[in-house]
């Protein structure tokens, strides 16, 4: 075992693939000598130079477009947007181009690109630098959406995403970047997309979550354990493809589910998963499906207000308790 941060996990996956394949390139705002706005690309520029690690202008349409076009011509680009919020500026290229090209061209062209996007609140970023927009991506057929919660998963899932023949939106949680996790050096390998991880086994209720909320959910599980509630926590890791099998297996055991994400609840991806459970597992449930998310507001700046709007351990604890 050794310690590795989430950001290092991402960086080392990029390094591994860039060493392996000259067609893997990285570009985005300040990813070069500066090392990335959140320091994720670090020293990659020093190792691979301007040809392979390129600073771009502040030009998100061109960044996403260059990823689409180069991927269509046989490159495996990794494009970084500084914040997922800036995806709005490059959205046409992701939604109308990257996601559609294989399908509308009859399978002729593949787009093996990775779009890395830092997401989430908790750093005082306010309304335009804190959003959780994963539901925008999961909504679009043609995109794969990955959201790791720890260094080992970030490493293994990014290896797979870079090699994936389809466009992958790789969502990174900003608060987790500096978090250190234990990683098993013998297990530093590709993790298939669509395989959730049962982080904590339990028998009474299933928490389905991902990203930063995995940690909040584990804390909530610890709190309710004192009252004899045994929680199972599932980290989805990839939002699409979705590991339905693991969800189904768990609910067949616990008969209760709480879905937790950092998204504002209206239109959240957790709603889609809840609908799937309601359609397919209704008779397995012995209580209502509960969802925990942010309030339906933009993320406010003031720390106290931000903390109020964002979901936390207490919200998860209350949701779990409400089922007993």
């Amino acid at each position, binding site marked *: 075992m050794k310690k590795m941060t989430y950001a290092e996990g991402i960086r080392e996956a990029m390094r591994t693939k860039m060493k392996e394949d*000259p*067609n893997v*390139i990285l*570009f985005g705002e300040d990813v070069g000598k500066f090392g990335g706005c959140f320091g994720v690309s670090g020293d990659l520029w020093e190792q691979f130079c301007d*040809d*392979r690690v*390129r600073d*771009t*202008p502040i*030009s998100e*349409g*061109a960044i*996403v*477009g*260059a*990823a*689409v*076009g*180069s*991927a*269509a*011509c*046989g*490159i495996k*680009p990794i494009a970084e947007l500084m914040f997922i919020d800036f995806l709005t500026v490059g959205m*046409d*290229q992701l939604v*109308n*181009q990257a996601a559609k*090209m*294989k*399908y*509308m*061209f*009859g*399978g*002729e*062209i*593949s787009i093996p690109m990775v779009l890395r996007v830092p997401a989430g609140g908790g750093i005082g970023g306010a309304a335009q630098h804190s959003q959780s927009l994963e539901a925008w991506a999961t909504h679009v*057929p*043609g995109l*794969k959406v990955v959201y790791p919660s720890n260094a080992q998963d970030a490493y293994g899932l990014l290896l797979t995403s870079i090699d*994936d*023949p*389809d466009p992958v939106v790789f969502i990174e949680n900003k608060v987790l970047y500096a978090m250190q996790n234990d990683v098993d050096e013998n297990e530093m390998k590709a993790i298939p997309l669509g395989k959730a991880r049962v982080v904590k086994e339990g028998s009474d209720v299933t928490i389905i979550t991902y990203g930063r909320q995995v940690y909040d959910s584990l804390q909530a599980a610890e709190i309710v354990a004192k009252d004899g509630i045994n929680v199972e926590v599932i980290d989805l890791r990839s939002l699409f*493809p979705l590991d339905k099998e693991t969800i189904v297996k768990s609910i067949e055991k616990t008969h209760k589910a709480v879905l937790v994400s950092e998204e504002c609840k209206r239109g959240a991806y957790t709603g889609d998963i809840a609908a799937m459970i309601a359609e397919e597992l209704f008779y397995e449930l012995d209580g209502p499906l509960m969802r925990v998310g942010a309030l339906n507001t933009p993320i406010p700046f003031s720390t106290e207000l931000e903390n109020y709007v964002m979901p936390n351990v207490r919200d998860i604890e209350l949701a779990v308790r409400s089922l007993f």
Partner: protein
Amino acid sequence: MKITNEQLKEMYLTMLKIRKFETSAMDLFADGKIPGFVHLYIGEEAVATGACANLREDDYITSTHRGHGHIIAKGGELNYMMAELFGKEDGYCNGKGGSMHIADATKGILGANGIVGAGHNIAVGSGLAIQTKKTDQVCICFFGDASTNQGTFHEALNLASVWKLPVVFVCENNGYGISVSQERHQAITDISVRGASYNMPGITIDGNDLFAVYEAVGEAVARARKGQGPTLIECKTYRWRGHFEGDPTVYRPEGELEAWLKKDPIPRVEKYFIENELMTEEEIKEMNDNVDKMVEEAIEFAENSPIPSLESALKDVYSDIVEEGRVR
């Protein structure tokens, strides 16, 4: 640049293929045989033809919603194109793309595109791929005058210029963004001036003059192949038909179309053939007849092609995932 007689005849053949394919598409749409939207290239044939004549099979193009001409000029096959317009299984996209979404990866055709201004940055990406692989390929990005008001145009020219990418931006200024004339949608007359903002050469030429297009794009392609960066070429031209088939074109001033009909790029080449005794009237007629046959065959091919299976609707969303369909 010297054009050989063979090259010129080849280009003339391409122009005829575009004109006759488009004229047939117009009739077929009117007869209700082609669903959806059809945007025709009639009148603009010299641009795609003169530009693509400078390309090799391994070069790339990006196209637009008015893409049939570009695709034919880059070597797209009429049978598969027509079958796609019909929404049939043997179409380029197995009936899932239609008129606005034809691509042929084997010929470097990165797709027609239904979003105005979307091709610019895909072309930039193509240029980035070429630069990364260190080959001497190029990409021609075709687009209309109205798309130069999209932010994507400016983002693409800027990035192509700062990275010296092998992209040739070919603007087809046909005078209209749908119904809005150029003087109402931008405060410049020559779009080529916008090259200056990005420190790239910008020139304006007669887009109905095949020779002028061939030469200007040829020089730009040569520069791009040598790693000397992008060029913006504005080709002044005109679409004879409306924005889409069914457009009543009430926005066109009287006499405008008639004036442009006199500048038809095709008879200009025929005149050159006759004056320079490169082809006789009979040879020209024979070539026309041959192209008529090609288009008739394409229509027959399209009509005989099966309707796609319903299961095919689920395929090619992803490379490795096919979701379940519905049971009725």
